[in-house]
């Protein structure tokens, strides 16, 4: 899945922070839960036309799944594959619980301002997303259902949700292979359903790699007829590009 073992780039984002960058088609973003217990909120947009963005319902219903793991693809609202999950150590990532906001963080973990705590102040996912989105001329209208990597929320037969504690361990890794250029907006703020007593602050290590070429036998491409058709749509999008 990787062109080479050595990362092109390696970085650590502290817990309770946010960052964004553009992933280019044909590269892998490796997410590593450095300490265990991480939550990474993520949104994705097409830099060429940010009206195209990650779409939670289309991703779930196309693959008849409530969870995300290896073999799944992350679909845009335009029927294309933004990224493929080519490695996953955990088997379950959440994309239905949304993100924490200022009110939720203050209610759950107390108010800690920048004046009080400098860069250890309590950031929240909602404001963090807006902060990063503004760098691309995007805003509240562009907020959509986000991914929550390393977090597990399951349901019972009645649809009641339950957050699963201790789901992710130190070193847990997810590899996302990008199938089109994508603005990646992320934060390391707590999962909105985390029952932790203290504001959870877990860093994210991320690395960039060149991806090996995607073959017709690629496990993500062949995982379902729906995924195969989404790859066909993505190929059409790139038809007139070198």
């Amino acid at each position: 899945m990787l062109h080479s073992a050595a990362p092109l780039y390696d970085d650590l984002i502290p817990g309770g922070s946010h960052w964004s960058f553009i992933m280019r088609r044909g590269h892998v973003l490796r997410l590593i839960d450095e300490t265990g217990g991480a939550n990474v909120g993520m949104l994705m947009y097409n830099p060429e036309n940010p009206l195209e963005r990650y779409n939670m319902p289309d991703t779930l219903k196309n693959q008849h799944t409530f969870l995300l793991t290896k073999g799944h693809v992350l679909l845009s609202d335009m029927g294309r594959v933004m990224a493929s999950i080519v490695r996953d150590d955990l088997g379950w990532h959440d994309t239905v619980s949304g993100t924490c906001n200022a009110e939720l963080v203050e209610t759950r973990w107390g108010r800690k301002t920048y004046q009080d705590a400098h860069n250890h102040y309590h950031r929240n996912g909602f404001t963090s997303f807006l902060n990063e989105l503004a760098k691309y001329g995007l805003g509240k209208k562009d907020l959509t259902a986000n991914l929550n990597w390393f977090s597990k929320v399951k349901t019972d037969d009645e649809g009641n949700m339950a957050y699963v504690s201790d789901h992710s361990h130190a070193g847990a890794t997810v590899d996302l292979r990008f199938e089109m250029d994508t603005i990646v907006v992320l934060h390391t703020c707590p999962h909105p359903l985390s029952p932790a007593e203290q504001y959870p602050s877990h860093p994210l290590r991320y690395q960039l790699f060149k991806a090996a070429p995607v073959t017709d036998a690629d496990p993500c491409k062949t995982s379902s007829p729906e995924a195969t058709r989404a790859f066909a749509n993505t190929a059409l999008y790139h038809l007139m590009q070198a």
Partner: protein
Amino acid sequence: MIKASTLHPETAAFRETVPAGEYFLKVVKAGETIRILDREGNQAADTLFYNAHNPTERYSAVDTIRAQGNVYLTAGSKLMSSENNLMLEITADTCGRHDTLGGACAAESNTTRYALEKKCMHACRDSWLVAVTEHEELGLSKRDITHNINFFMNVPVTADGGLTFADGISDAGKYVELKAAMDVLVMISNCPQLNNPCNGWNPTPIEVLVWN
């Protein structure tokens, strides 16, 4: 939860039939009640809500399901906005369960779900795009079209993380009723989908009623 309404259609201040494949757009004021009626059964009403005074605030599927700790909507469900405010509450429901995970059909999602050549079939997002384009005064665009409620649709989630589109549990005459907690713009696409059982392969009219 099945809960019948105490309101009578003959006292409604507003009634409109919405054929399949059409959109419905109306402001419902705080305190008013809106009923969406499945006239012939097995229909899907794909619905979005906006704060009528500031449409950047709108219905949020993820905030709603997290706030109530359950992925299905029924009587008693509180519909939350993207800014964590109560928009509407479901006050009556004779269907029992409504979906807010499955999203709406679009030309593009029809290509992935069914076949690449389905791209020109009419879809819910087309109806919404026409609605916002025909009503430029609202200041809405594709940016504002997010994750909706599928009234009358049944999308069961299993304990091991599966998700299925099941036969509808609605029937002719079933309805859902919501009381607005703020002035809301209601935008419905009465689903034209012909490729799955969500509306029995036969899209049919819905009716919208409003009581002051």
